[in-house]
């Protein structure tokens, strides 16, 4: 096994509002936890233009914070940074922990509920991989999804369902994860969404935070699959939050009262 690597992460999210904010809240899931092969050496989050109201561990044991945008602010900056040491476990996370029962990850959610396209995908997999072991089947599923849904940014959004992304034939990591989750559940495996960070080898500045999925198998427990990159997560992946789908594990979920538009800007650096 290779030695662990240290990743330095700086993730800055900025919302600019074209009118002073009357009342707005942001729910953050931005703090990685130690465990499952990763050790958080240091981590800090700084909010400018907002105030932290609550922090708690949610049903999937994600560290969650509620932030209120300061009244009258036109900009809030959420800065999350730290160092995490990661081992390469070939995507194997292992046993299921926490109060959330495994069966929770068997149920479809509105975003991951299967339609004709997902059903066809599952049928195709069954036909092609009949007799193969579960892990091989799942790797094949991942490859099948990537071949049918090309990675393209800007054409789907955070509300796009697994079914519609598969039908459209393009999407981003979030869509890939949703499709894999939907299909895996259809095949009888509990599956979950993971949001986190990936150090891409060729660059320091990343476009956005990453997402992949984990599927539970009898033999190995939870195993990660990054459909977009065609691999299981290695030492370059930092897990931040998990859930049944994007909505459970979204890095930032907000609500705002009052008129006007907002503009989102993300800057993310992951480096060794």
């Amino acid at each position, binding site marked *: 096994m290779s030695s662990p690597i240290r990743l330095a992460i700086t993730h800055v999210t900025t919302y600019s509002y074209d009118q002073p904010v009357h009342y707005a809240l942001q729910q953050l899931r931005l703090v990685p936890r130690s465990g499952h092969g990763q050790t958080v050496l240091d981590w800090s989050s700084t909010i400018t233009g907002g105030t932290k109201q*609550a922090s708690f561990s949610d049903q999937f044991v994600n560290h969650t914070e509620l932030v209120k945008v300061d009244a009258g602010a036109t900009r809030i900056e959420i800065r999350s940074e730290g160092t995490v040491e990661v081992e390469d476990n070939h995507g194997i996370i292992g046993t299921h922990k926490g109060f959330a*029962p495994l*069966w929770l990850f068997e149920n479809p959610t509105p975003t991951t509920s299967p339609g004709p396209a997902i059903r066809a995908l599952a049928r195709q997999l069954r036909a092609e991989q009949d007799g193969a072991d579960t892990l091989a089947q799942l790797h094949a599923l991942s490859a099948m999804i990537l071949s049918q849904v090309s990675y393209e940014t800007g054409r789907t959004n955070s509300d796009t369902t697994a079914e519609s992304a598969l039908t459209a034939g393009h999407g981003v990591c979030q869509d890939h994860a949703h499709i894999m989750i939907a299909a895996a559940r259809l095949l009888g495996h509990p599956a979950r969404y993971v949001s986190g960070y990936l150090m891409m080898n060729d660059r320091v500045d990343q476009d956005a935070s990453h997402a992949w999925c984990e599927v539970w198998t009898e033999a190995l427990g939870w195993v990660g699959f990054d459909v977009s990159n065609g691999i299981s997560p290695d030492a370059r992946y930092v897990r931040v939050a998990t859930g049944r789908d994007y909505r459970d594990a979204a890095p930032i979920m907000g609500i705002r009262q009052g008129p006007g538009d907002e503009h989102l800007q993300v800057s993310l650096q992951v480096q060794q």
Partner: protein
Amino acid sequence: MADTGSTFDEMLARSDQPRPPYESYFQWFANEDLKDLRRKSREAEAFFRRIGITFNVYGQDEADERLIPFDIVPRIISAREWATLERGIEQRVRAINAFLHDIYHRQEILRAGRIPKEIISKNTAFLPEMIGVNPPGGVYTHIVGTDLVRTGENEFFVLEDNARTPSGVSYMLENRETMLQMFPELFSQLKVRPVSAYPQLLRRSLADCAPEGLTDRPTVAVLTPGIHNSAYFEHAFLADQMGAELVESHDLVVENGRVAMRTTQGYHPIDVLYRRVDDDYLDPLTFNPDSLLGVPGIMDVYRAGNITIANAPGTGIADDKALYSYMPDIVEFYTGERAILQNVPTWRCSEADSLAYVLDHLSDLVVKEVHGSGGYGMLVGPAASKKEIAAFEKKLRARPSNYIAQPTLALSTVPILSKAGLAPRHVDLRPFVLVSPNKVEITPGGLTRVALKKGSLVVNSSQGGGTKDTWVLGD
């Protein structure tokens, strides 16, 4: 169990022979002038209208506020009968709280195989967001309104547990107030246990559930969907009687890590929120994003331990009618005792054998939606026409797991004042239970609902039911 045709009359053992709890009342009644009583009955209605005890009917003009008919003949329960009910209800409520804690933590009852996983996993009332949450004081069901029916001398059944948001307590209080004003002499003759302390007990019980370490004098508020809600009267009434603020979603914000209400002098934090808004609408940030009735962020403040929500979100799962059929097991699993109060035998239509039986006996059974309430979406076999039964059968076959069926119980009767004098009508009973970390309190009395139509078994106010004052006699 099934309808044998003999109905238990709670007042009369024979036509001229009252049962013991009713003896004094029966004598008193014999000496009263019917015309006089009918006048009092009309006065009571005018009184209710003037003080505004009305409910709005869904789907009708908002200005159409209806009165729930009130019958002036009391329903009387002896001290001995009450003592049994009290023990049975307390046992059941404790079991429900233990069940809710378990189901949102380790789910031992599922691991032990005492109830099937699907009852929880396929249930929309199960709130994943409550997993691992420890409500302040460990209380999930702060207020419960157990629906009971009676079929014989010692035969009481629990029909529904109403652990989510039982309504009707304002009628219990106003009915008593009206009876006290109309018949003071009766109250001096009979030792009727008072119910008037309920609002104070409710306030204290809620305050006892406040998060620890925030304040010595918890602020309690009642959250209402607003004046157009059908139970608005009750929300205002309870807030008023408790001396608590009545708030709507737009009165509340998250401020300094608390949920706070907007006052004329700034924001004031709330420790305990008695909410009369459904789970799904409670927090648009966590649940239904389109909700206008909720408070964004309240679930976050709650999960951080800085507010008490009563009843706790996710308690609705205990009201599921499929789960209901397992209540005797649940009581036994968590209390180690046999259930004191009986459950109505229930066929789960999700099970093939049961479904076959139910389909064969539709005209004898009551069939209910698992998540339904208020008497909507149910079939009362014996009262339904062939056409209604046929239509219902279609729905049942399409989604069997959405239904349970029960025998038509021969609900006991208590007389109402009709034009011709006393006339028996079917009743049920909803006592109100308060749960705090240290105790379970049951107000001696409750809401007696009565089917005003002769022979009818449907007591819901939305479908022609009325109410009666309920007297529990002292020793």
